[in-house]
């Protein structure tokens, strides 16, 4: 037929980098990375004016290092949020994960410990997924309940830090390549895997679809329940990775490792900061990493300026709300368009 005419869009497609074709400042993913860059720049200037040094190697290392644990959790959290669910049990799962890791390493091998933690995580994720999809308990309540269950187990069985992590495994938490902590590579690897899964596999496509419109996804043949379950398992596995990292860094399991750091709400904040819609279906891992980095850079600046830790929370709260308000602006326009599209579509019925 009109092969020549169809040529243009088709041949353009393969050359396009994924997502790169529509890099726009208004895209939250781009936005959050730009914001992180801007904050770094501003931090640099402010800290320098304050008489400090911001662009130092050790500072840079610190920022990266502080991104790892939250990064791992947030990357996992992105997976569930993308799918339209939520996981509030991550903090206790981290705690339990560090304990299991350290105790297993004390008595057995590192490999067994890693497997044990991942198995535990997968089981918890599976349970979350099943409760959400099978029992139809809202994810908020389901994972909150799971958090309580884990908490009780931890408190009943542990009276403080336990276990011992061998020096060999502690290298994960302490070693560096140049000025880059090796654990950053773990984060990059996990994020890359999740990025590949969400962007490149069928499962990932189905996750976006389920989060975007569960009904439409189901009609298109997506096994939406299974997808939600997988997302929960993936999230839990990332949390397991975070637990392993923390165990290696802490040298022992700590019953409060996850909760005192508030990884549950912080990870959700990072995900949302990274432009993933809380309702699901939009966003992704790349933005989340940007969100984590932004929080880390902010933290580092506050550190340098010796800002009161309470005041930090105020700023974080403001930043999170402001960022999402900014994302909501293009969304407002889009929502309007969609309303109109819907009005027209409904008109098509007659």
């Amino acid at each position: 037929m009109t092969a020549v005419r169809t040529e243009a869009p088709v041949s353009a497609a393969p050359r396009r980098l994924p997502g790169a074709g529509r890099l726009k400042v208004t895209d939250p993913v781009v936005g959050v990375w730009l914001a992180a860059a801007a904050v770094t720049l501003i931090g640099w200037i402010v800290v320098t004016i304050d008489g400090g040094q911001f662009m130092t190697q050790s500072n840079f290392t610190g920022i990266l290092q502080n991104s790892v644990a939250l990064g791992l959790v947030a990357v996992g959290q992105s997976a569930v949020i993308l799918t339209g669910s939520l996981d509030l049990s991550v903090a206790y799962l981290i705690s339990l994960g560090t304990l299991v890791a350290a105790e297993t390493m004390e008595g057995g091998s590192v490999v067994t410990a890693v497997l044990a933690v991942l198995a535990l995580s997968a089981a918890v994720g599976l349970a979350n997924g099943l409760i959400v999809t099978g029992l139809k308990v809202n994810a908020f309540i389901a994972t909150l309940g799971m958090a309580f269950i884990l908490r009780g187990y931890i408190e009943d069985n542990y009276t403080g830090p336990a276990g011992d992590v061998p020096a060999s495994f502690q290298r994960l938490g302490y070693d560096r390549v140049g000025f880059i902590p090796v654990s950053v590579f773990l984060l990059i690897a996990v994020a890359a895997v999740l990025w590949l899964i969400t962007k490149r596999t069928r499962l990932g496509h189905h996750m976006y679809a389920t989060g975007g419109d569960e009904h439409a996804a189901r009609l298109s043949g997506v096994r939406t329940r299974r997808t939600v379950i997988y997302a929960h398992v993936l999230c839990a596995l990332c949390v397991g990775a975070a637990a392993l990292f923390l165990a290696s860094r802490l040298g022992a399991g700590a019953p409060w490792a996850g909760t005192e750091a508030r990884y549950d709400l912080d990870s959700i904040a990072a995900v949302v900061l990274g432009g993933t819609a809380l309702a699901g279906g939009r966003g992704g891992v790349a933005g989340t990493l940007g969100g984590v980095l932004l929080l880390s850079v902010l933290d580092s600046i506050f550190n340098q300026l010796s800002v009161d830790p309470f005041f930090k929370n105020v700023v974080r709260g403001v930043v999170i709300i402001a960022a999402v308000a900014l994302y909501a602006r293009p969304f407002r326009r889009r929502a309007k368009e969609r309303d109109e599209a819907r009005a027209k579509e409904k008109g098509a019925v007659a």
Partner: protein
Amino acid sequence: MTTTTPPTTTAGPASVVGALGRRLGTGAPVYVLLAVLLAALAITDPGFYEPDSFLAFIKRAAPLVILAAGQYMVIVSGGFDLSVGAVVTAGVVAGAEFYGSYPDAPWLLVTAGLLLAGAIVGLVNGLITTVLLVPSFITTLGMMLILEGAVFYWTGGSPQGVLPESFRNFGRGEAGGWLPWAVLAVLAVGALAWWLMRADFGRTLLATGDNERAAALAGVRVPRVRTLAFVLSGTAAALAAVLVAGFSGVSAQAGRGLEFEAITAVVLGGVILGGGRGSVVAAMAGAFSLQALFTLLNLQGVSGALESTVQGFIVIAAVGLGATGLPGLSRLRRRRSQPSEGKSSS
């Protein structure tokens, strides 16, 4: 009966059960749960129903019940309020701080001031959510960080004042020597909430949570109604703060975790996250159930540490059974067959 056709045989039994479920309302499971828990309490502790100790139980439940009533308003309009725990903490700390500077302030004034402050927090939550279109989960999460940070920043880490007896009497003392003020507060809040939900405001609020577009086209000022829900929630949280401060005095962690407890209570009451369905009385019954559960676990002497595990299981089971139970079945099937209007956020 509907106009078109007589019911078919297949639909018969299902619709009978459905009708029963509907008559009991979506809150039905929570009343059963509450009855079971209260019966279990009676068995565990024969003295539980002596007037004094029963009133003491209500008094203890009061802050959570009031929080649940406020949280209900927000949830039923389609949102979340995660900031209520922080409002309670901030309220207690700010009250003490205020008394630190003005030890002779009249208690009524301070209470009114706290309620006003709670309302303002709710107003800000509401405006950010409705005007800036930030999902309420994020708005109130941010607000939680801001409040906790700000109040401790302001007090330099811990409150400076002592709460006088006059102020604390409301949460601690009894009217006429036997009826705790807190019980009166619960009754008043319950009556007010019940009335509000029957009144124009409540009905438009429910309609807004159910279908925001339809509500807007029916002339409902949606942003205003939703904002008002946040204001009520903030005020309720402040009232809870006054009660908590009265009941147990100054503490830097008075409200810790209360937001989750309140949301759990509301959901236990059969209110759907996402809005549009559920009754405020059931939500308050959910709060009583939760408190009864705490008390029961305490009396049963479940190993202190395992308490939260038991609590987690019961909450999941109760909500799960409510969701998949008989009245719920048809509802869910129904919902799935229609494209949903967005998720439970916003």
